[in-house]
């Protein structure tokens, strides 16, 4: 079985609808959990890791949690090709580290891909809920539900004082990392982004690139997440991150308004140029595509470009990633072939959405 689940086109978060969808691309809550008395994955021999994977499979496979979204399917990563694993990374369903690890590691995915559970990553279980737009509360409630469901069958490593015990001491306590992926072209163009980010660490939050730890920010996309997990409740973390996010949203809207007011023609020219290149280019690198897609999205959000659904951005930023491209093509592609394929996919998607109508 070559992972039917990974070639699914859309994850729930890529639909892109919800509160503040013009700026917040997705909301995520991740809970780290370990099984009592069993050494953490990095100390476990393969046979014991397999036992844990089987245990999780017995608990969640085929189950529907929360009356929607479909049932869980558990996949052993050993059954997937490298490419398929990287597709999961590009859809944010597993971490890059998990994709690169060997041995009986696994992932449990709900059909709508709003919930993924990494098995034997740094911790035995990493329950993750990923929803479109600004839905941090919803993501936390969903993650909490899944956590409760699994806890009916597993004794988690928990200490009254220290909370949920995790492999890395930076996750102990709630074991929770909540994050939002933000699209902030306004703050970047007005050169305020770095200033805003610098203040984040002072209030206990971290800013990262699109694919988390150690990745580059591209397409003006940034991930904002909590740093502290011990000494604060889950609700505190969510409400703190939410209120800071709302502030940033306001700043971004303000920056966009200023751009429209002070450089409306330049901005209009810029976003239409982005559209022009995207809809006609024959060769395009990932970096160029991400930058132009971001500008296109800005143009649509500001009403400068009409007739294209803004959420095409959410789909294309994943479809044009390198593993996804190769998966779609069905063969391995050289970097140059990828740039050709990427340009083709973007062109097709853009004209599809326009329905052949003239837009200007």
């Amino acid at each position, binding site marked *: 079985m070559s992972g039917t689940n990974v070639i699914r086109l859309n994850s729930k978060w890529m639909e892109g609808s919800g509160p503040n969808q013009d700026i917040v691309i997705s909301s995520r809550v991740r809970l780290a959990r370990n099984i009592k008395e069993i050494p953490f994955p990095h100390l476990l021999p393969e046979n014991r890791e397999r036992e844990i994977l089987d245990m999780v499979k017995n608990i969640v496979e085929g189950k529907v949690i929360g009356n929607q979204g479909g049932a869980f399917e558990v996949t052993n990563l050993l059954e997937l090709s490298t490419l398929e694993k*990287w597709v999961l990374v590009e859809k944010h369903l597993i971490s890059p580290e998990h994709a690169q690890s060997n041995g009986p590691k696994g992932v449990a995915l709900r059909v709508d891909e709003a919930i993924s559970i990494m098995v034997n990553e740094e911790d035995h279980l990493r329950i993750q809920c990923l929803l479109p737009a600004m839905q941090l509360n919803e993501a936390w409630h969903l993650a909490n539900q899944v956590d409760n469901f699994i806890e009916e069958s597993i004794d988690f490593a*928990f200490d009254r004082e220290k909370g949920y015990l995790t492999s890395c*001491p930076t996750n102990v306590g709630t074991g929770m990392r909540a994050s939002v992926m933000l699209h902030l072209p306004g703050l970047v163009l007005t050169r305020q982004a770095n200033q805003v980010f610098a203040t984040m660490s002072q209030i206990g939050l971290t800013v990262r690139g699109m694919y988390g730890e150690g*990745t580059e920010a591209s397409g003006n996309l940034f991930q904002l997440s909590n740093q*502290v997990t011990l*000494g*604060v409740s889950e609700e505190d973390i969510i409400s703190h991150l939410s209120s800071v996010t709302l502030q940033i949203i306001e700043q971004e809207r303000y920056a966009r308004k200023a751009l429209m007011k002070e450089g409306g023609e330049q901005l209009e020219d810029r976003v239409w140029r982005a559209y022009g290149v995207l809809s006609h280019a024959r060769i395009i690198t990932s970096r160029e595509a991400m930058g132009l897609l971001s500008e296109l999205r800005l143009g649509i959000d500001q009403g400068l470009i009409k007739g294209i659904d803004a959420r095409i951005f959410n789909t294309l930023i994943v479809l044009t990633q390198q*593993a996804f491209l190769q998966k779609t093509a069905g063969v391995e592609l050289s970097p140059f072939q990828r740039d050709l394929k990427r340009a083709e996919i973007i062109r097709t998607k853009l004209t599809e959405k326009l329905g052949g109508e003239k837009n200007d």
Partner: protein
Amino acid sequence: MLCDRCKQRPATVHFTKIINNEKYEQHLCEECSKEISQFAFGSHQGFSLNKFLANLINYDPSFGGVELGYRAERCDNCGLTYTQFTQGGKLGCNHCYQAFENKLDPLLKRIHSSRIHKGKVPERAGGKLKVEKEIESLRNELQRLVGREEFEKAAEVRDKIKELEKKLAG
């Protein structure tokens, strides 16, 4: 030659990759090459939190002054030694938190806002713990109410605490 990526700075780093007889060249400036190497497909070499943590424990005098005897200290359950922890930044099992408590506590205090968990308690296993936590938070609430001289509400909270304490004892 200008950098392929930023097209501004001169290219000083030259890559040649040959995959399936296909030659792929890239000319980058130093800054771009650094950024790119952080997230190269299949060779993730980004910043590692665990390594960072390990270095913090190893080089910070407030952790590094660990006496030799302690370095050999071992967790009875999983066998991880303290030295191994300082090297990898990862603990071995739930017992490690007790085994290395003396050394971990200052670290936790530095990373987090407090050393005491205030969040969720497991629904099933934590039944008793949950009641204890609830009593604790009610006690805080009681103090607040008394401070604000809202005695009627305080009395209600006090009764609730008594009820929960009975539940714990029984």
